[in-house]
């Protein structure tokens, strides 16, 4: 059992997409679309179906298995939806039965001349250091992989 602890953090990620705000919004509102771009290739299916009830008060659920077989679960609740403009929802992440984090996520979509700007802001309470990976190199690699993809995506433009 981990010791009890809470870390609070806020981060923002912004992207410009050459796509109409309605298209960007649609990618968050439609479960089929979301399954495509939210899919983490490292995670395996646990046989359950993802669910998305995309309306104020609606729930979202998906779960899967980490590469080492650990079950992961995501539960979300939608608070505010302004079509093509804004989505506010909370989400919890579980590993097994242990709650790893509770976050408030805000997605803002602003039209621009050549497409849309998306701003994702997450304000989170990260609990009990559950995601602390024993093999520290793993965390390093994770960050560097993410960074590599990030940089690769930049170099292509």
């Amino acid at each position, binding site marked *: 059992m981990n010791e009890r602890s809470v870390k609070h953090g806020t981060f923002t990620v912004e992207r410009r997409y050459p796509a109409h705000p309605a298209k960007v919004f649609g990618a968050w509102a439609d479960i089929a679309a979301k399954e495509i771009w939210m899919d983490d290739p490292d995670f395996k299916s646990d046989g359950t179906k993802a669910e998305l009830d995309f309306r104020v008060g609606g729930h979202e659920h998906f779960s899967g298995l980490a590469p080492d077989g650990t079950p992961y679960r995501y539960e979300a609740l939608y608070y505010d939806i302004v079509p093509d403009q804004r989505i506010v929802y909370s989400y919890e992440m579980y590993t097994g039965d242990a709650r790893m984090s509770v976050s408030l996520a805000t997605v803002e979509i602003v039209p621009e001349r050549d497409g849309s700007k998306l701003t994702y802001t997450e304000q989170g309470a990260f609990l009990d250091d559950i995601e602390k990976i024993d093999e*520290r190199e793993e965390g390093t690699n994770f*960050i560097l992989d993410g960074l590599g993809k990030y*940089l690769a995506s930049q170099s292509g433009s």
Partner: protein
Amino acid sequence: MLDQLVDPDLDRIFHALADPGRRLMVDRLSRGKASVTQLGQPLAMSLAAVLQHVRVLEACGLVRSQKIGRTRTCSINPVGLRSAETWISERRALWEFRLDRLGGYLADEGGGLPPDAGAGRAQPLNQTER
């Protein structure tokens, strides 16, 4: 309370890794320790230049080095990345990845814009932490 939990080194890490030479060094070190000379071998640069890059990597906490005799040995410093804020950095990295995938998805779908508008890929803007 919040301020002390925000990772001041993340911007420096991103900056340090924006350089291809330094990425090569980190890649090399992720496979094991190396001397400054060894790190410089695949790069056409002076030892002094290599050392400067090592210092940048050290300053952001990605790499540590130790001088034994006349040889400076470098190794990756995972502890630097497993600091209290790693949690948040990892979550952010995940969203960086996801939003790039969203860009790929939108590109595949066609953006619903006139064909000549906004040709190109998703453009990352600034990333900020508060």
